[in-house]
């Protein structure tokens, strides 16, 4: 029996407009595989960072450390685009006033899987709240450990710094701060009141999204590793607490080795989660490591079976109502 079917009692069978307070928390280790840049300002600006305590068991007087932050909005933006490519391929993005459902414009179709799951605000006044909620993700290591400086030059057509016609030298020399490959970010993605198929779709988007951050077509390759899944009737702890607890599990208060193998971080996420869940005032079920791996295999199998995937996407779209 598939993992999602086995746990389907924790998920609503169909979409309902009224919140029911059923949560699925996806605990992630996001592993940077090439240089990456996450910032909220333009080129030349430093990376996003926050000064926070390294661990939760910080000793009195210990100074906070800077951690690099991947903003929550940068994360879902990428993942929903991944899903929308699929919907577009099967013609499941609907039209409205002759214009096809497009992100961030006044033409959400208000009825595709993407609109229904990740939300929209229509110009006319209606809106759908997102049921996929991300949090700012924090780097496991301190910013000093995982960032580097890179000088970049803008070359002319001749691949040199000189313009042959004018003899002028390129003035576009700049330094950019970047995140080093093998950096790890700890993250929780929270799904609220999603159906079994919506969970499959969200996981598919997570596993298939690979490019995040600035200049995303060339750099910013990230692998999303699912370290844990928790079904619950309330919100879990925050990303910051999880990151700090993972830090405590892995180290003895000093900064961690870099690079750190992601499997060590995964194990630490599971251990930290078990500890943090003890304080949770609510009901929850956490998948075992084996079940998480089975779940991943289940999603990979679904996404490699074109007809099964297409029929799932069509059924999901139809389930939202007569317009589909």
């Amino acid at each position, binding site marked *: 029996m598939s993992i999602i079917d086995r746990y389907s009692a924790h998920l609503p069978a169909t979409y309902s*407009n*009224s*919140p029911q*307070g059923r949560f699925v928390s996806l605990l992630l280790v996001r592993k940077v595989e090439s240089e990456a840049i996450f910032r*909220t*300002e*333009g080129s030349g600006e430093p990376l*996003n960072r*926050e000064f*926070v305590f390294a661990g939760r068991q910080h000793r009195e007087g210990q100074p906070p450390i800077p951690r690099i932050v991947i*903003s*929550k*909005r940068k994360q879902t*933006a990428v993942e*929903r*685009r991944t899903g*929308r490519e699929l919907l577009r391929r099967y013609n499941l993005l609907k039209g409205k006033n*002759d*214009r*096809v459902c*497009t*992100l*961030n*414009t*006044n033409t959400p179709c208000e009825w595709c899987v993407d609109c229904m799951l990740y*939300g929209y*605000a229509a*110009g*006319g*006044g*209606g*809106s*759908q*709240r*997102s*049921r996929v*909620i991300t*949090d*700012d993700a924090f780097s496991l290591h301190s910013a000093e450990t995982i960032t580097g400086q890179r000088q970049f030059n803008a070359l002319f057509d001749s691949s040199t710094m000189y313009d042959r016609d004018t003899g002028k030298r390129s003035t576009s020399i700049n330094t950019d701060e970047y995140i080093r490959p093998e950096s790890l970010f700890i993250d929780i993605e929270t799904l609220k*009141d999603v159906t079994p198929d919506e969970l499959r779709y969200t996981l598919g988007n997570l596993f298939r999204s690979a490019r995040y951050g600035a200049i995303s077509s060339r750099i910013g390759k990230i692998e999303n590793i699912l370290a844990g899944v928790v079904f619950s009737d*309330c*919100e*879990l*702890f*925050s*990303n*910051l*607490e999880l990151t700090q607890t993972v830090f405590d599990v892995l180290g003895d208060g000093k900064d961690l080795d870099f690079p750190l193998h992601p499997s060590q971080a995964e194990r630490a996420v599971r251990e930290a989660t078990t500890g943090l869940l003890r*304080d*949770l*005032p609510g009901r929850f079920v956490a998948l075992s490591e084996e079940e998480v791996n089975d779940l991943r295999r289940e999603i990979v199998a679904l996404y490699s079976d074109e007809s099964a995937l297409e029929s799932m996407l069509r059924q999901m779209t139809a389930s939202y109502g007569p317009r589909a």
Partner: protein
Amino acid sequence: MPHIYRCALELMEPTFFSSREVSAIYQTEPLIGNYALAYAFGFCQAPYRTAGSPRYREDLGGLNQRGLYVTPATIQGAPRFTVGEFNAQTDTYWYAMGNNLLVTRPDGAWAEGAMGAWYIIERPGEKGRKLGVENRPQHGRIRYLALGNVALCYVISEQDITIPRYIRLGKFMSKARVTAEPVAFELVHAENVTIGFLLNPADLPAELAMTFWDTINVPPTPLIKNLRCSGACYRIDRDRYLPARMAFGV
């Protein structure tokens, strides 16, 4: 007698409420309104899909009937902010940033900008269909309340209730950790006391005599601070007062 809970909200992420807009800068005032808190605590629930207008009267009115009230939250100490930039981006390969408009073009068509406006051209030679501007910002700067700010509010309830450990606040559903504890109090007639934290003036009982206060103009309703008043109050923590019989004035 009701139950009173003191709730400390610790922001675990930068948090944004659009409380003030100056050209392309969207600012969060250092406070959290109590309507937003009533939803965030899950005391009432907004549906996932809405037709646009808030349902304060239905939702908050229901809380009045249950004898449940939450005050606005006051930031403890000096508030700290984080500033960031945002840019709406579409999922098409080609797009342009117009004046308050994100331009995309349908397949087989062309988009052209002229005199600050954008046109979609379907057939060669035609002037094209003019695109209207959008009624929401496409780019700008955001001032968030920074991670780590702590805000304090009070929940007053006829029934004993469980307050969630974590809530989501603001436009981007930022996570906040809640530490709630019941407080001991007594109902007294207070004479000329000052209430240092934020209150919603629309929610105060008519019989409370108010001398002076500072007004903070924020949507959806203005709030007040440093209210000097006389009347029925709950005396909490020995020298803190909370007006009695507050209810959502919707």
